[in-house]
């Protein structure tokens, strides 16, 4: 269904969202430049952003690939377990992705 908005309205949406998104992106990057040094408590908290966010980004795609929890017949979960094993032993993003994708394709197409 095509939009009925005028070209100008669409451009305004694009620019408004662009400005807001840039503001979000630069927020702390410029704020930390204004501080002499970042408080210890903040640094301590920030070290947990990577594990928390990586898990939050990844987990649903393996545990609930179609929007609900599946353990039986879940191709993505099996591929994820294989990939985790490779990541654990090899610690290489490239190898992990190849292992995960190959597992998914073997389960799906039986190649």
């Amino acid at each position, binding site marked *: 269904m095509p*939009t009925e908005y005028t070209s100008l*309205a669409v451009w305004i949406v694009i620019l408004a969202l662009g400005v807001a998104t*840039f503001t979000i992106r630069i927020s702390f990057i410029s704020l930390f430049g204004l501080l002499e040094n970042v408080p210890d408590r903040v640094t301590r908290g920030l070290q947990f952003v990577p594990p928390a966010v990586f898990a939050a980004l990844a987990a649903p795609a393996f545990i609930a690939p179609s929007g609900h929890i599946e353990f039986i017949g879940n191709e993505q979960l099996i591929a994820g377990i294989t990939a985790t094993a490779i990541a654990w032993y090899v610690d290489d993003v490239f190898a992990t992705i190849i292992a995960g994708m190959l597992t998914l*394709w073997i389960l799906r197409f039986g190649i």
Partner: protein
Amino acid sequence: MPTRRLPAEIARGLRDVAPLLIGIIPFGLVAGAAAVEAGLRPLQAIGLSVVVFAGASQLAVIDLLGQNAALSIVVITGVVINLRILMYSASIAPSFQSFRPRWKAITAYILTDQAYALSISRYAEKELSKTERRRYYLTVALTLWIVWQICTIVGIIIGARVPDEWGLGFAVPLVFLSLLVPAAASRPAIAAALVGGVVSTVGTIYNFPLNLGLITGGATGVVAGVVVDTYTNTPGQSSSETNH
């Protein structure tokens, strides 16, 4: 191999970002194809990818414009979906602290889930100089930017013709999974990952709107990490040495 003559962190960045592209390409094609299907002009579809450069929010905006939702709702939805980038901005800010303002603006504009994830993992793995940090980040983030723009244009012209059952998009969570394994290296970090993953999955199952499951997962995960770090003062663990 021509990459051998490149500075080390550029070569390393190219190598690290390459597998990610498998997952980004179909996503970028959809961003282009869906925009023209929703009635955006080709130039607007490109403008959305260039000006906003954040896939999930782009798709939401395209969908809402196609449904003729109120313009304020369209913008607010996009902004809320992108709020998660606040966490990346804060997490990566210490590594960018010594950059000049112009570089900060450039690095911020191309900050994405994937550029953040690869870079913060690389910085944790190896002590890099300011120049090396910038090189690595720019290599990864700019590659993603260029591929995203090309895919948008291709998607506008020929549509998104990658069959769904190939599951190429699955490469994206695989990247985060492979970065998660080394990142969850201490007890508090494992707690952060467990809580982050569980809360985010709950958000998916119960259809939290606007990607809010991801933000809540990230935030509660960080809190869990701090709590476990505070209450398990294992001797020899460097992170919790300071007494207060």
